[in-house]
């Protein structure tokens, strides 16, 4: 049975690889490949959850309101609650153009990429609630690629031309007469705003407008150069949802240096996960690297990850694998992984052979 499955897997992997030959010469700049970076929400990762609803307030008022809404559940802890926010982007930055954001000093990078995440998760199996808090930031975040700068410049020009066509439509459909009434003093500015808004709405519903007003596609913003991301998180377990019963459960620190240039991306990782509770409490340090080659439709990489158990149960082990991904359509990825998996749960290191399908992935495509 195992040989049968392995044969099928080999054929599937071969088909996957053959399909790459047809697109190996793609010239399109690859989309940002950030699935190997530090977890975007460290608190969620350490809790081992994927929240179905994450509050992402966009203003300081929204942020406060998010917590006030949950205060109604006090003195007990909220059952399942997740919030993630980027403090820098909670307020407007009217003078920060995309051109000024093309390169960042370390302090600017830290400010603009710093996020905090917090979550609660109720575990039905032991009637305890886990609470996690985490942060993430990039000390270095590279710079916009030349291709991205060109795309954004072209996009700005295209949006300007779209605006010219729209103004022309408005002018021809009553805008000229409306403007004359303003100039002649027949309308106050408030009255003009109301009538102009109505005229704009009419033009927006026209077929002419629908044909010309489309968002610019293929505006993936790519950065290249050296990047360094760090993240940290801690979780506490509250047995019976009482404050006094809190116990530190897990801590985690991630450091991810990487270098992106053209189709190549080399990612390194150093991470520490400490588990303080349970019979198999342990502290684990992992380090490794992965060079990745990416095109618009496929990626290929080799991964080495070393695991060192500094305390507790478990043995030192490592994982070495080749990973190939192929994109089909907009959001569907097929992943083939082959290599040596690390020892797990008391079992010896084994063969790693996986074929996976990810649809509509907006997060990590595979774990590191």
């Amino acid at each position, binding site marked *: 049975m195992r040989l049968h499955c392995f044969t099928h897997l080999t054929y599937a992997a071969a088909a996957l690889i053959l399909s790459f030959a047809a697109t190996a010469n793609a010239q399109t700049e690859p989309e940002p490949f950030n699935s190997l970076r530090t977890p975007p929400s460290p608190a969620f990762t350490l809790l081992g959850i994927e929240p179905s609803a994450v509050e992402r307030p*966009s203003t300081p008022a929204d942020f406060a309101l998010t917590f006030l809404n949950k205060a109604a559940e006090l003195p007990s802890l909220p059952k399942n609650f997740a919030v993630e926010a980027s403090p820098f982007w909670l307020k407007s930055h009217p003078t920060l153009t995309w051109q000024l954001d093309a390169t960042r000093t370390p302090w600017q990078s830290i400010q603009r990429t710093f996020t905090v995440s917090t979550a609660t998760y109720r575990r039905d199996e032991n009637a305890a609630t886990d609470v996690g808090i985490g942060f993430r930031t990039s000390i270095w975040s590279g710079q916009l690629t030349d291709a991205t700068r060109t795309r954004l410049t072209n996009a700005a020009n295209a*949006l300007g031309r779209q605006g010219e066509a*729209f103004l022309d439509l408005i002018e021809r459909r009553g*805008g000229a007469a409306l403007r004359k009434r303003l100039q002649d003093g027949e309308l106050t500015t408030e009255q*003009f705003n109301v009538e*102009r*808004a109505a005229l704009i709405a009419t033009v927006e519903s026209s077929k002419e407008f629908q044909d010309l007003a489309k968002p610019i596609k293929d505006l993936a913003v790519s950065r290249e150069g050296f990047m360094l991301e760090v993240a940290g998180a801690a979780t506490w377990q509250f047995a019976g949802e009482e404050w006094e019963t809190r116990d530190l459960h897990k801590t985690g620190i991630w450091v991810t240096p990487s270098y992106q240039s053209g189709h190549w991306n080399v990612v390194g990782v150093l991470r520490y996960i400490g588990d303080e509770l349970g019979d198999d409490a342990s502290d684990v340090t992992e380090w490794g690297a992965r060079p990745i080659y990416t095109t618009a439709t496929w990626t290929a990489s080799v991964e080495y990850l070393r695991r060192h158990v500094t305390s507790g149960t478990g043995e030192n082990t490592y994982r070495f694998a080749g990973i190939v991904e192929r994109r089909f359509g907009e959001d569907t990825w097929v992943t083939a992984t082959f290599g040596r998996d690390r020892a797990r749960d008391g079992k010896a290191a084994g063969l790693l052979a996986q074929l996976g399908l990810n649809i509509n992935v907006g997060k990590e495509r595979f774990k590191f």
Partner: protein
Amino acid sequence: MAGDVRVVDTNLYMVTKDTPVQLRVTVGDAQVGGTALRLDGMPVPINPATGVAQIGQPGQDLKRSVLECLTTVQDINPSSNRTSVTYDLVGGPAAGSFPYTISVTADKGLARYFITFLFDRT
């Protein structure tokens, strides 16, 4: 389109007799945008790189002229759906700065700023 939003506003700006004004349009919050201008219904060129345009010519009286601006901003910032545009006018007795901000309701959505300036003189 879903996620598209708009801002409509009109402002009064005092000008100096027979003197052109300079407009600078700044698209903030690390978003991308382009601007189109019409003065009394006629297109006015704007430098896309600097966002600067000269409104009127030396000797041209801008009193009761209407400048219509349309800035179309597309959300490209993965960290924020907020857009902001600032219109700065100089050349009259006093400079004027007119900031606006609105958030798109969906990623990669468009925000359109329909801002009109009515020029006048004392």
